């Protein structure tokens, strides 16, 4: 699973441009399930288990990641961009980016030329430009076009029992879902690898309509704030304490019975102790006439940055908890 996670994080899939990620996923699930792709680029798969399920269950992970989109090119050959999804300006400054095969950096005023006040405050994001080393608009337009996506690069590295990489949100969910599909399953279930989560939970809306499930599980990554200086009450969830299970966020009030069943599973997990953020559950639970929904999230520090940090054991436990909930819901043991 971790080899697959590494390879997934090394692929670029900014929202609306997820094809490289989707193609990779198909190469890994081919032969282990039936699947099709839909008009938006979602992969919808059916995993046949040993037994028929009493509930139609959809397990979802999103393929896209936050990044940048090129909007125009200046006369000097610098690229203007907009953020795709939520990215803090501090994470943009002086970063290496990749636009397909083209390398670039986000250039700005060096620290020596900043006034005292400028040194303390972040610049406005719209004052930053990508520098691909082109010296004119014509030269730049020969290499990139408005609408191309850029990712802030960040290599996959192990830090003790932790993993540092870009796009752990939500390649961790994708890696878990791939491993569930590649394993034997006790019960039938549906899986969706969905596009455009970071721009408004859009792919999951279409996928949920197509599958028309009774129940759904979103496999996600969520903010861990267990960093130096954070108050205990503000940590949301902690690395190493198992996957976070949500009761409520800004997009969803979760199914209480599923939430309780997850916490009582005996598998190491923790409640997501804040009403903040949102994920594909927001689309899944409102699909058609309503869907009972659970979110299982890998705690992730510095989410939406090129250096996300997550715990290996948390990812393993998220996979175990997902398998446990699939069996429980599909067998009817979890009511």
């Amino acid at each position, binding site marked *: 699973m971790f080899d697959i996670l590494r390879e997934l994080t090394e692929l670029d899939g900014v929202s609306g441009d997820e094809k490289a990620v989707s193609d990779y996923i198909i190469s890994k699930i081919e032969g282990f399930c039936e699947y099709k792709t839909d008009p938006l680029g979602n992969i919808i798969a059916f995993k046949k288990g040993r037994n028929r399920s009493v509930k139609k269950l959809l397990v979802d992970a999103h393929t896209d990641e936050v990044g940048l989109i090129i909007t125009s090119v200046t006369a000097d050959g*610098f690229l203007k961009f907009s953020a795709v999804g*939520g990215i*803090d300006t*501090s*994470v943009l*400054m*002086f*970063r*290496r980016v990749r636009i397909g095969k*083209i*390398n*670039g*950096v*986000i*250039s*700005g*005023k*060096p*620290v*020596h*030329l*900043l006034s005292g006040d400028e*040194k*303390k*405050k*972040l*610049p406005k994001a719209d*004052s*930053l*430009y990508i*520098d*691909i*080393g*082109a*010296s004119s608009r014509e030269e*730049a337009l020969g*290499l990139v076009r408005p609408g191309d996506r850029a990712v802030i690069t*960040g290599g996959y*590295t192990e*830090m*003790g*029992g*932790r993993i*540092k990489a870009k796009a752990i949100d939500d390649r961790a969910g994708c890696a878990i879902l791939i491993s569930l599909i590649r394993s034997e399953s006790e019960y039938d279930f549906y899986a969706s690898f969905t596009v455009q989560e970071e721009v408004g939970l859009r792919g999951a809306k279409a996928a949920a309509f197509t599958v028309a499930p009774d129940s759904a599980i979103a496999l996600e990554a969520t*903010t861990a*704030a267990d*960093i*130096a*200086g*954070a108050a205990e009450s*503000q940590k949301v969830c902690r690395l190493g304490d198992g996957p976070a299970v949500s009761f409520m966020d800004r997009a969803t009030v979760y199914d209480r019975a599923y939430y309780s069943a997850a916490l009582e599973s005996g598998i190491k997990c923790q409640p997501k102790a*804040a009403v*903040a953020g949102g994920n594909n559950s927001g689309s899944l639970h409102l699909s058609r006439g309503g869907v009972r929904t659970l979110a299982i999230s890998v705690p992730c*520090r*510095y*989410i939406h*940055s*090129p*250096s996300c*940090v997550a715990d290996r054991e948390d990812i393993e436990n998220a996979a175990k908890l997902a398998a446990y909930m699939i069996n429980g819901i599909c067998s009817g043991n979890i009511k």
Partner: protein
Amino acid sequence: MDIKEILFELSRRDALGSINDAAVYAGELLSRFAEIKKLGNMSVAAAFNGKSDYTLLFDAHIDQIGMIVTDVDSEGFLTVANSGGIDIRSLPARAVTVHGKEKIPAVFCATPPHLSAGETEYSDISKIKLDTGLGEKAAEIVSVGDYVTFSAEPAELTGDTVTGRSFDDRAGAACLIELAGRFSGKDLPCNVIILLSDAEELGMRGAVTAAFELSPDEAVAVDVSFGDGPGISDEECGNLGGGAMIGISPVLDRAMSDKLINTAEENGIMYQTEVMGGRTGTNADVIAVSRGGVKTCTVSVPLRNMHTETEVLRLCDLESVCDLLEKYALSGGLADV
């Protein structure tokens, strides 16, 4: 090795405080062309003897900016202080290398939105903790006083534009190593010493002692200077691709500036002038007042994003610097003036 390879290999290695991988490597490259003299600190020098006693010194600094660990806490978070100027606004979520008992990766903490009340003020590097991911085991590997460096690998952008860390001043060092190759076996009209000096970013200390030790008659500090880019006015920078930046300043020798300009003009070498109102912020400032005084000038490579790990320069500017200094040395500098 072409100059890009030299630059990239120097960029990949670090030199800061007690870490001297880049200096050792640079010394190995220089030793192919001349005998190496190691100076009191980690500075290295290569001397080429000429026909006269007049000695021309070309200096570039081999050290780089970085950080030093000031605290290791029980959860594996480090506090650091900066060694040299660093834009702390760009540190959150940046991956760096901690040079402890072994080299380990670490990431600067980024405060999630729900914890930052309004606009964050970035005024104190000690408030941005460094996450090793190691918990209490961090203390077994990392100690107070260990160094932290940026970690970006060098890479090519479009055409001859390249990016990487520590181009300040591996750009200058790469030029001088290239020049050592050009001087090797040549009849030179005067002695030429190539100096790769230590501790420039901590107040030009390596150049202070090395200039005393080497006692040159004339010196050029080869460093980087501000290149054009977004948000920088034309008046405060040179142009990438515009050639070697020749310094003119009250603290520099005007006859040297003029001869460097004439040398560029006569040989069709791309150059631009960099006029400064006083001190230059380079080793030229201290070499000029070494012993009884040394005629000194600056020749600089235009560089974007100085003191970041995404510094950007054009290789054609390195070629201009090499061509200019080669012709200048072959003309004997100011020996006959």
